[in-house]
């Protein structure tokens, strides 16, 4: 019986153990024609993609494949296993997908690890769905001297078996042909593996014994040696530090180029808006302001971080593919365990140094729910990219002309963030998330050459997810903040009116002086407009609360405006204090920094940025939760708004207390 007519879509689920190269095969089959989405009611993601099978002699044109999470057994009481069970039973599907049993199963086995993989195969075959078994990584098996008789294996499993090397593409065309033949003819497996654990294992052993022969390269000496070094308390820690230093240096060095291009692009867009308004002769009103300072600045502020996000996930994928990450988890377990966090937490915490959003999403690798929640709650303490412009500004103000000291302060900010995260985790694990430490048990995958294709697709996917999830939230908040900062519209300030009158008086005799006075009048107006805006009034309203930290109303406006996104602080201060300058190049930035350094409070004497206020601000920005997208993702990943509110309250309280302490010490 055929299930598909011409033009129909066959729906296939990819199932397999972790580390079987299932995702590499999925990427090989679908390329970029895929999307990532959630299973309803869970935070578990999977990718769904399509590939053309017309060349494979199919009646159907397209196969729609879902890349299920890697699992060790369908019977485990884990979310991943539960989702796989439900997908095979047609009881769940990715959001937007049709709820029905898949037309077929692609069961991916690791050729170098067949004996264990066959247990999951037995569980899957019992579902009686048309199944094709893919024996992946046959190139590695050949190198190890393994001889797999695929015909015998096919007999033992009662379904077609196709040898494949997903990384090189070997066998993929044959796989497509076999898949459509099996699925379209609805051929179900003839083997009936036992349902009990002991019987299933004996069945898997028998299937293995009947189909695998030959000489095995028994010596795994170099793998043993590599494992001993990479998990050694001292050598492993040194190796970890070196590898992570290279990863970070690579991310920050490489990302600066595309980040520069993106900044240039968005500056160009802003100039384009100016040009458009000038060309049409329209006055720069509300729409101009909204587009340039709300939409373009808001979107640009997010998009600029995409290169760092993509590079981070590219390099993490490379490290994972080599087999190193599992070893590193054990190294970090020793470091993190005293604080109640597992070794698994190091990837999320590492990712959070680029951005907390992917970091929090990466906590899904932590099996224990309490340990996972603790990691989510403390991850935003680590220094993300968005804090860097604030650090650059404040350390520059504190140590002008002393780059070494500024650098030390910079590193100190990173350390403070990590210490705060660890102590907060310890506190959480001793109080609200109390529970026994779960000792680690991890499969250590074989060392192998990583797939650049898989890494590139992982980077592309994460970049898209970041843009979609963070971009929309930040854009909305940017527009709201723009609105708060732009309304109500204030008329020209008396000081600016006087300046313009003076400029007009000297326009003919001293035109350069007149230009300068006009420019000053524009700055005074921008600052006056900000002070009269809702944001300015809010700044004045909260000033009493922030005064113990050393902030006047102008700094309070900066703190408030950057509540949604930290990096907004620098731009806001340049408007409120320096009068609307924008730094397009290094000279401009220096000029803004000078303007900020000499800016005065309302008394006309006290600097806005006193050294004590700078220290206080620096500590505040290291510790405060000034990022609404992070709160949104925390609520989603932790399973409730209450956790996001707790995170906000705790980080705000810690930031306030520490900033007050810093201000008090620095003022003493």
């Amino acid at each position: 019986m055929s299930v598909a007519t011409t033009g129909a879509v066959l729906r296939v689920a990819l199932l397999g153990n972790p580390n079987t190269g299932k995702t590499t095969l999925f990427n090989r089959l679908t390329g970029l024609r895929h999307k990532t989405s959630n299973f309803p009611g869970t935070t578990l993601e999977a990718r769904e993609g399509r590939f053309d099978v017309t060349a494979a002699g199919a009646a159907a044109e397209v196969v729609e494949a879902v890349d299920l999470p890697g699992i060790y057994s369908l019977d485990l009481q884990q979310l991943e296993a539960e989702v796989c069970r439900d997908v095979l039973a047609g009881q769940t599907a990715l959001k937007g997908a049709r709820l029905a049993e898949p037309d077929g199963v692609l069961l991916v086995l690791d050729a170098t690890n067949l004996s264990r993989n066959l247990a999951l195969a037995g569980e899957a075959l019992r579902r009686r769905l048309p199944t094709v078994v893919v024996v992946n990584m046959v190139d590695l098996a050949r190198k190890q001297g393994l001889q797999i008789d695929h015909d015998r294996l096919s007999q033992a499993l009662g379904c077609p078996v196709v040898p494949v090397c997903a990384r090189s593409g070997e066998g993929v065309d044959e796989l497509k042909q076999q898949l459509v033949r099996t699925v379209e003819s609805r051929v179900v497996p003839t083997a009936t593996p036992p349902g009990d654990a002991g019987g299933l294992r004996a069945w898997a052993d028998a299937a293995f014994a009947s189909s695998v022969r030959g000489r095995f390269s028994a010596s795994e000496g170099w793998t043993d040696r590599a494992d001993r070094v990479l998990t050694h308390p001292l050598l492993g820690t040194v190796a970890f530090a070196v590898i992570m230093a290279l990863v970070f240096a690579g991310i920050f060095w490489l990302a600066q180029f595309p980040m520069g291009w993106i900044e240039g692009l968005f500056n160009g867009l802003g100039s384009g808006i100016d040009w458009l308004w000038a060309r049409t002769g329209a006055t720069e009103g509300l729409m101009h302001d909204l587009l340039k300072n709300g939409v373009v600045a808001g979107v640009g502020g997010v998009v600029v971080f995409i290169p760092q996000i993509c590079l981070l996930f590219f390099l993490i994928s490379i490290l994972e593919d080599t087999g190193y990450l599992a070893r590193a988890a054990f190294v970090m377990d020793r470091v993190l365990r005293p604080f109640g966090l597992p070794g698994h937490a190091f990837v999320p915490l590492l990712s959070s140094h680029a951005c907390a959003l992917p970091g929090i999403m990466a906590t899904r690798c932590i099996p224990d729910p309490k340990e996972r929640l603790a990691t989510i709650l403390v991850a935003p303490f680590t220094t993300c990219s968005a804090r860097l412009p604030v650090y650059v500004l404040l350390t520059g103000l504190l140590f002008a002309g002393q780059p070494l000291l500024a650098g030390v302060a910079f590193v100190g900010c990173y350390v403070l963030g990590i210490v705060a995260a660890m102590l907060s985790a310890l506190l959480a694990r001793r109080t609200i998330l109390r529970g026994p430490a779960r000792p680690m048990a991890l499969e250590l995958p074989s060392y192998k050459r990583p797939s650049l294709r898989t890494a590139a697709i992982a980077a592309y996917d994460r970049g898209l997810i970041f843009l979609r999830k963070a971009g929309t939230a930040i854009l909305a908040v940017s527009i709201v903040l723009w609105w708060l900062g732009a309304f109500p519209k204030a008329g020209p300030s008396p000081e600016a009116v006087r300046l313009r009158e003076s400029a007009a008086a000297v326009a003919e005799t001293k035109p350069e002086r007149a230009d300068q006075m006009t420019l000053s009048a524009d700055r005074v107006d921008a600052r006056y407009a900000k002070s009269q805006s809702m944001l300015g009034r809010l700044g004045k309203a909260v000033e009493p609360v922030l005064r113990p930290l050393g902030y006047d109303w102008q700094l309070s406006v900066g703190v408030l405006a950057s509540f949604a996104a930290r990096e907004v602080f620098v731009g806001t201060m340049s408007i409120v204090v320096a009068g609307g300058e924008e730094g397009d190049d290094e000279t401009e930035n220096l000029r803004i920094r000078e303007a900020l350094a000499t800016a005065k409070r309302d008394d006309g004497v006290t600097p806005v940025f006193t050294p004590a206020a700078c220290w206080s601000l620096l500590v505040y920005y290291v510790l405060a939760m000034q990022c609404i997208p992070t709160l949104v993702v925390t609520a989603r990943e932790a399973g409730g708004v209450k956790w996001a509110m707790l995170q906000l309250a705790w980080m705000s309280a810690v930031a306030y207390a520490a900033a007050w302490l810093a201000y008090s010490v620095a003022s003493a």
Partner: protein
Amino acid sequence: MPVEEVPQTANLPLPSQAARPLSTFRAGQYGLVVACRVEGSDAPILRAMGLTEGSIVRVCRVGEPTIVALLCHRGCHCASSRVGLARAIADRVLVTEEPVPEGEGEGTGQR
């Protein structure tokens, strides 16, 4: 000790005098897992990863972590996968020592 004589639950007495925690083995030794007295949800995960009563292991590293290679079967050198265990787990996996298989470097899938 034959696999079928191995006690299946932690409530039963120690399987034999020869069985001792995996954490006491030396790197390079072989062993037969006779009991996994791991609690909670770790036990089924370990079983699904292939570390269960009757598994033959080669000890690759002892300490924190303990690393074992899981072999296809007794007398075989073919390591199917490798598992890293925290010492707390390795302490609770009881193993009897197995002889080093003959013919280092060879083996077959057939028993």
